[in-house]
């Protein structure tokens, strides 16, 4: 039974209920703000209210991808698996938020632009970004050994995040040379709309933090189970 205490990997305490409650209250307030409190947009009407969650999800997704970058670099520097757990948790949550962006976008675009999708700069780059991090997650499923998986995923994660600005600039320059579809907000945003947007962003950030925390703990526990199983099979032999 020697070495039992060292081999255990700390997965951290369970998610505390107050933090869940805070995030839910934020989410409720943001929904109230976006659906009822915010003024109705003059030309687009009701469907414009999707904008608050659409934009805040995109910003939050970006932050999650930046966390992948930080986690990947920190893993390569320290070789502590906890950084890999942060990367995988952030990548999954980031992909989830970008899925929300890619689904809510067309729902808004159909009544406003009359089409579900157009190969506009921002749409194309969001789509490509989503594909990049889906590839990251697929790569992770194809490597079994934890240390090796963490290492190759970290290198690819760094390359993928470095690609984000390049993707944006290239597509932006590429598309601005072509006729552009009319994008709704040429002007400035109403003050109250800004407040609601910020509230929504705070709420989605809260959801992101919570989900990353849960997914991180799950990954840690998975490792712990694997380690225990290995130990058990060694002891029985």
């Amino acid at each position: 039974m020697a070495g039992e205490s060292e081999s255990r990997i700390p997965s951290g305490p369970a998610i505390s209920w107050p933090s869940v409650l805070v995030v839910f209250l934020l989410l409720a307030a943001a929904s109230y703000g976006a659906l009822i409190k915010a003024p109705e947009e003059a030309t687009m009407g009701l469907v414009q209210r999707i904008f608050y969650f659409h934009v805040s999800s995109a910003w939050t997704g970006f932050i999650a991808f930046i966390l992948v970058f930080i986690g990947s670099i920190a893993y390569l520097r320290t070789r502590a698996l906890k950084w890999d757990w942060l990367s995988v948790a952030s990548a999954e949550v980031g992909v989830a938020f970008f899925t929300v962006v890619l689904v809510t976008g067309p729902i808004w675009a159909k009544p406003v632009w009359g089409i579900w999708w157009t190969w506009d700069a921002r749409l194309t780059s969001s789509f490509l970004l989503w594909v990049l991090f889906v590839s990251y997650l697929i790569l992770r499923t194809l490597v079994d050994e934890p240390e090796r998986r963490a290492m190759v995923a970290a290198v690819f994660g760094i390359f993928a995040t470095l690609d984000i600005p390049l993707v944006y600039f290239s597509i932006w320059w590429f598309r601005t040379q072509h006729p552009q579809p009319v994008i709704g907000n040429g002007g400035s945003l109403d003050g109250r709309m800004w407040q609601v947007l910020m509230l929504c962003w705070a709420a989605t950030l809260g959801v992101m933090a919570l989900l990353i925390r849960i997914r991180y703990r799950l990954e840690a526990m998975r490792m712990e189970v694997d380690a225990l199983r290995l130990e058990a099979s060694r002891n029985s032999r």
Partner: protein
Amino acid sequence: MSLVHATATILAKELRTEFRSRELLGTTIVFVLIVIVLFSFTFNPTSSESRRFGPGLLWLAFLFAGSLMLQPSFLREQTNDTLAALRLAPIDPFSILAGKMAANFLFLLLVELILLPVFAVLYNIAIFPILAPLVLVLALGTIGLATTGTVFSAVAAQARLRELLLPLLLLPVLAPVLIASTEATVGLLRDPSELSPVWLTFLTSFDVVFLTAAWLFGEYLLEE
């Protein structure tokens, strides 16, 4: 052994391995030829249409070729168990990666230069007047392709389904290269022809960003 010297040694080794069999180059050239023929069915390859779609198709064919051709770069070492021997050498680990990148760059550029005239003839594109700037664009795009491709080849070599995985990792990351090289080539074919400084700068920055990233983080991939 200095980095440059070690890199040159690895490069020479890669070239020697390839030119003994020439299987990689031959197969890739035929593959791109097949892609070029198949593309001709997707649109009417008249002169004006070719000028519009040709550069994109050409670059797409090169990217596909790269995503298949770079596969053996690390796989060869793995099947022969020679990567461990390379790692034991008293050289900077980055030089292994750099030598392979340089070799892959030369292979890809050679394939491109052989296929460029074929493509020009088949698709009625006059490339002679713009040959020098076109080769510059080809070289800059190919540096980006070879850099990321070599690193991802090392990534994919450690995973299952590696043949399928490499294109999956490589193609989305290379989307900016596809756009920039295609647009630069389209600019060259325009009348009057112009070499867009924006896209040249962009390709150069892509190469610099990923060469630096490969230099900083690539050597982790060579660990056992």
